[in-house]
């Protein structure tokens, strides 16, 4: 833990940690010492790299770290974005309840854009087939008492692009 307490004194204006972030967005090299390989590419020590990653995890910049699965390759091909038009007073509570549903993989409140877009809550449901996704949705609607809430189901018909976020300004490292 002594390593952690020293991270607050890390330089914040440097470029090497930005380079590290850009590299991390593309994933770890699959070698015995992945952190050392990254360290060499951004001019840090392996310990510094680990300390940065530990800090980013602790601060919540990194939400999780591990295998990022492409569900389509596993046969999870039906992917529905369900959008709901909830009263503003209820949206946070319903959002939390939907997020706790095992079938719901993502759940966000978003700004409406009336008149063209009245929906303010978005959730994703994935499954092997449309019927199963729709059955899961019907089950959620029943149990959560959402029968009277206007909602639409948008199934994906084609993925033109699916990759992790690229937030850093740096171009291809």
């Amino acid at each position: 833990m002594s390593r952690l307490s020293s991270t607050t004194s890390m330089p914040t204006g440097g470029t090497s940690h930005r380079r590290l972030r850009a590299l991390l967005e593309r994933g770890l090299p699959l070698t015995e010492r992945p952190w050392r390989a990254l360290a060499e590419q951004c001019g840090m020590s392996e310990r510094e790299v680990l300390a940065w990653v530990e800090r980013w995890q602790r601060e919540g910049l990194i939400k999780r770290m591990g295998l990022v699965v492409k569900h389509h390759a596993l046969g999870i091909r039906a992917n529905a974005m369900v959008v709901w038009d909830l009263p503003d007073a209820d949206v946070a509570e319903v959002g939390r309840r939907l997020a706790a549903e095992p079938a719901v993989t993502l759940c966000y409140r978003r700004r409406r854009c009336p008149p063209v877009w009245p929906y303010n809550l978005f959730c994703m449901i994935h499954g092997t087939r449309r019927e199963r996704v729709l059955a899961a949705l019907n089950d959620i609607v029943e149990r959560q008492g959402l029968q009277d809430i206007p909602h639409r189901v948008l199934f994906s018909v084609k993925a033109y692009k699916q990759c992790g976020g690229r937030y850093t300004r740096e171009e291809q490292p």
Partner: protein
Amino acid sequence: MAELDALDRRLIDAYQRGLPLCERPFAAMGECLGVSETQVIERLRWLQQAEVLSRVGPVFDPARAGASLLAAVAVPEAERDAVAEAINRSPGINHNYAREGLAREGLARQHDYNLWFVMTASDEIQLEARLEALEEELGYALLRLPMVEAFHIDLGFPISWAELEAP
């Protein structure tokens, strides 16, 4: 569909999060699963090649990592592929899906949003500049849907292997 062996499944079940933060993470994973470091690395490389994994590494919180926005555009079906390609060429695009389900009574045709994408940037100013450039290139107005609140905690995605194998 890729044929996964028992080790592949155990890796996916155990390590969508919590990759060990140590010098030799794949050795630590192997130790937990009772296999060698080499086996873990080999399977991960294979899974990545087979496009079962997009990568092994961190998932950044979009709300903290920079600026990002879900946007949609309504285009005639005949133009959909060409518009999607133009969106993909634009910097910062990380998801771009065609979706159906909106076309029905009540919403006018021009509001039948059929392309949905997420644009990212290092900050809000760069994001808006990218959106405006894309809007101009496409000649269609973008529906901008900024996130107000995230309700889920991203823990990865439990895979139900039995359901995948069901006929």
